[in-house]
């Protein structure tokens, strides 16, 4: 058993938790973040990659619009490497009411969201695949963001301030005594070891899982209503700017160019369990139809991968309606002192990735108030290494890097231009990581071949680094192939079927991966892989019920 003692335990390694642990650490508290899987493996890694300009909310939710515009400017500066300043358009498609654009422009002016109407001709010149039947176009400052780089940037910044980040640590119990939190118990899933963290304060940033965590401290049930959204990545950038439909926010009205792909999203369906997110065939069809409205011929382009995320909505009648001091729009803070007579815990729900820094500021302010301390938030003032301060992300950055190291480095993933050194550096940083952990940092297996060529190379290289043995290397290969398939099969059609046929030919046909020796649990148990499978497999992309 391992024992730790800190001022604050942050539970949950999504954007909220990462932003919170950074803020807590920067204000001088000792802190630990615990996350049952990898950072950004939940909702943060399962969205469309949009960094809001605020445009989406100028009519429906003006305060959100203003918050988004301000945070967009801050994040684009302090996390430059995670954010591409693509710009965006709001376009009126055939059949959409062109008068909504007037409401939009008025709302933008009122909320401080930069927006400018451009001619249809200019929009079509800049984005030639756009529906030529659009009637109006408004330019905004939407960007795209890599959720994984964003959370790792915040987590590494927190580490710099002394925080400890414990991934693959599942919370099992929260101790209380005399109406106050005293300790958090976790299991280190990689080592099978129990960890006890003595603490006086818990910040519950579990998102869709926040209710389950609050229950461990004996709080009244927290009504979390996860809202499922599906997204589909198309195999290249159909557009180079974010394209939104200029309508009241609805399903399937955004196409977002992220890295080498473009992502259409999303739906919103209430679900019971955030660990079981289906990708329903009718929702896939709905997304393809929606894409067709923005980009004629959308169905004929190649869909690469689909996934589902759960919005962390909290509907809780015990939240004091008057207490909105410490809240961002769309965000809910549950103060367990008033609600459950439990000191030393706050639960946070709702919110948006774009405003994750602001949410953290509010939550940590609330904690400081409860502790009776004045410590100022400095998170907006400081760049996050290594991606902050400097150039924003551009899609060609890896091409530039490979041009420089082409005589010394092999390209292990041609689709995503990932070099051998990128892989071995990431393996050294996460020697216990699965290939999906590496994928989230490197985009391994996320391009058109979906792991067809890079999986075997990554397996061989991982083994050669000495971090893992042959049995684990082989098990990781199997797990990676299985997990890639979860996001492939719901959208398998057209050219991706050709790719899949080739990939099956390689793995089943030429390599005969299926007939490698099976894992022998009596010889060397692989608890982390076995335990991870049900969670990771389901969370990876959802399963059909």
């Amino acid at each position, binding site marked *: 058993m391992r024992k730790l003692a800190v001022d604050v335990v942050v539970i949950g390694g999504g954007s909220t938790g990462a932003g919170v642990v950074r803020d807590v650490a920067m204000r001088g508290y000792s802190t630990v973040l615990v996350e049952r899987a990898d950072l950004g493996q939940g909702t943060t890694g399962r969205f469309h990659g949009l960094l809001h300009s605020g445009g989406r909310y100028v009519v429906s939710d003006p305060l959100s619009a203003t918050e988004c515009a301000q945070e967009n400017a801050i994040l684009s500066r302090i996390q430059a490497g995670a954010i591409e300043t693509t710009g965006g358009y709001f376009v009126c498609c055939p059949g959409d009411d062109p008068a909504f654009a007037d409401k939009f422009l008025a709302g933008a002016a009122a909320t401080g969201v930069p927006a400018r109407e451009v001619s249809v001709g200019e929009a079509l010149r800049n984005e030639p695949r756009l529906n030529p039947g659009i009637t109006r176009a408004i330019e905004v400052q939407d960007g795209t963001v890599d959720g994984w780089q964003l959370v790792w940037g915040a987590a590494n910044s927190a580490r710099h301030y002394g925080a400890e980040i414990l991934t693959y640590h599942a919370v099992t119990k929260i101790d209380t005594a005399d109406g106050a939190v005293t300790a958090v118990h976790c299991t280190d899933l990689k080592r099978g070891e129990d960890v006890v963290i003595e603490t006086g304060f818990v910040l519950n940033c579990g998102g869709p899982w926040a209710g389950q965590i609050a229950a461990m401290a004996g709080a009244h049930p927290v009504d979390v209503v996860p809202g499922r959204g599906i997204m589909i990545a198309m195999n290249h950038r159909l557009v180079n700017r974010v394209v939104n439909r200029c309508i009241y926010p609805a399903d399937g009205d955004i196409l977002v160019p992220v890295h080498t792909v473009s992502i259409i999203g999303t739906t919103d369906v209430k679900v019971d369990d955030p660990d079981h997110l289906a990708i329903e065939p009718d929702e896939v069809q709905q997304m393809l139809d929606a894409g067709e409205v923005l980009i004629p011929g959308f169905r004929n382009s190649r869909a690469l991968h689909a996934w589902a995320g759960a919005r962390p909505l909290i509907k809780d009648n015990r939240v004091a309606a008057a207490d909105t001091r410490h809240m961002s729009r769309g965000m809910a803070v549950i103060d367990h002192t008033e609600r459950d007579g439990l000191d030393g815990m706050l639960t946070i729900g709702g919110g948006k990735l774009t405003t994750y820094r602001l949410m953290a500021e509010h939550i940590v302010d609330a904690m400081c108030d409860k502790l009776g301390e004045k410590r100022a938030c400095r998170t907006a003032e400081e760049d996050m290494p290594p991606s902050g301060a400097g150039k924003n992300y551009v899609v060609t950055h890896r091409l530039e890097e490979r041009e420089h190291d082409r005589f010394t480095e092999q390209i292990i993933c041609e689709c995503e231009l990932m070099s051998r050194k990128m892989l071995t550096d990431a393996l050294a940083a996460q020697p216990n990581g699965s290939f999906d952990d590496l994928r989230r940092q490197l985009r391994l297996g996320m391009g058109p071949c979906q792991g067809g060529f890079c999986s075997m190379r990554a397996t061989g290289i991982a*083994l050669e680094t000495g971090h893992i043995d042959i049995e684990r290397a082989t098990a990781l290969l199997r797990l990676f192939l299985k997990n890639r398939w*979860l996001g492939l099969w719901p959208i398998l*059609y057209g050219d991706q079927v050709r790719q899949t046929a080739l990939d099956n030919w390689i793995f089943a046909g*030429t390599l005969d991966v299926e007939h490698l020796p099976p894992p022998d649990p009596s010889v060397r148990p692989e608890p982390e892989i076995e335990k991870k499978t049900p969670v990771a497999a389901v969370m990876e992309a959802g399963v059909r019920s």
Partner: protein
Amino acid sequence: MSRVVVIGAGLAGLVAANRLAAGGAKVVLLSKGLGGLQLGQGTIDVFGYAPERVSNPIRTVQALPGTHPYTRVGATNLLAGLAYLKELVPDLLVGDPEANYQLPTAVGAIRPTCLAQPSMVAGNLGAGDRVVIVGLRQLKDFHPQLVAENLARTDLPSGGRAKVRHLLVDFPAREGEIDSSALTYARAFDDPGVRERFARAFIGELESDEIVGLPAVLGVSDPNAWRHVAEKLGHPVFEIPLPPPSVPGIRLNEALTASAKAAGVRFVPGTRVFDFRASDRRVGSVTIAVEPAGREFAADAFVLAGGGFESGALELDSHGRVRETLFGLPLEGADAVPLIHGDYWGGEQPLFTVGVRVGSDLKPLDASGKPVYDNLWAAGGIIAGSAGWAEKCGDGIALASAMAAADSILKELS
């Protein structure tokens, strides 16, 4: 002289073209790409798993149930095809229809196959064999430690285990190049001087009695390159096929293309066949996609050997409909529910068994069991019933169906 158009340049198309030309037909082979041989392992699978590992493939084929494509093409055509292929490429294929080789793959699994290239057969290991797997630092598609350590912990099909270690050799294919493809290496190894330098680079590290496993890059034009390496090392050598581009597959492709050309087959590569004309249940011509309006090829008989989904001969659209993309032939298995399932390790996807139904003369059939066109034949991966990857039977089906189709055409046209 009868005119035959063959569509597709994989194993089925090349064997059919060779056979038809040798039988006196005037053959044009139309293909969009290079054919499927360079995607595969460069051996001839007949039957590998049924679902247990198969040691006698021809006996397994003879005992198959009625739904398998082999039951349409017949074991007799298969045996004739195997013999014919060995005649066509005598330097490249050895083996016995009664006994599979069990050969290591590039992840260290042991894979059954029927005819193999002579450069591979020393990999058919026995208990206690001492093996060293040698990789090249500049070749990213072959990781000798992965191969060696999986092989070492595998029970050999013949019983026992081999003793396997690995070695990584620094040997650029071209000066200053860190990231060379298998084909770049293979071209380098066509040079005897390169082979001698290569052998010298690690001969000192070999232990006595060791069998040397190497990536399948030992020459592409020179079929004896591997013998030269073995001779210089003084050890038996075997090649292990890599993911595409497959050098052993390219060797087969080039040899079969050369023999077809020598027999008078005319190749029109690089252009997709996109249209056809038919009347009175006979195909009159097919059209390839060249400017300005396509070019038509009329013939007395047509062989559709364009493969399956991997080549675009079959297509699944975004609404879940499968079609054969040239003739719009009726498909078997296209209405399976589900067509695709979510368990990667849960067995063959029904989608990849979809194809055309053929009669014993290899003509595609309609729902009533009659030929769709009286002068259209099908061969290879387009035939319904098995994707071939899991069972390791795709090459045998291609071969047997090409033989049967060619012989049926020659008989009808004579």
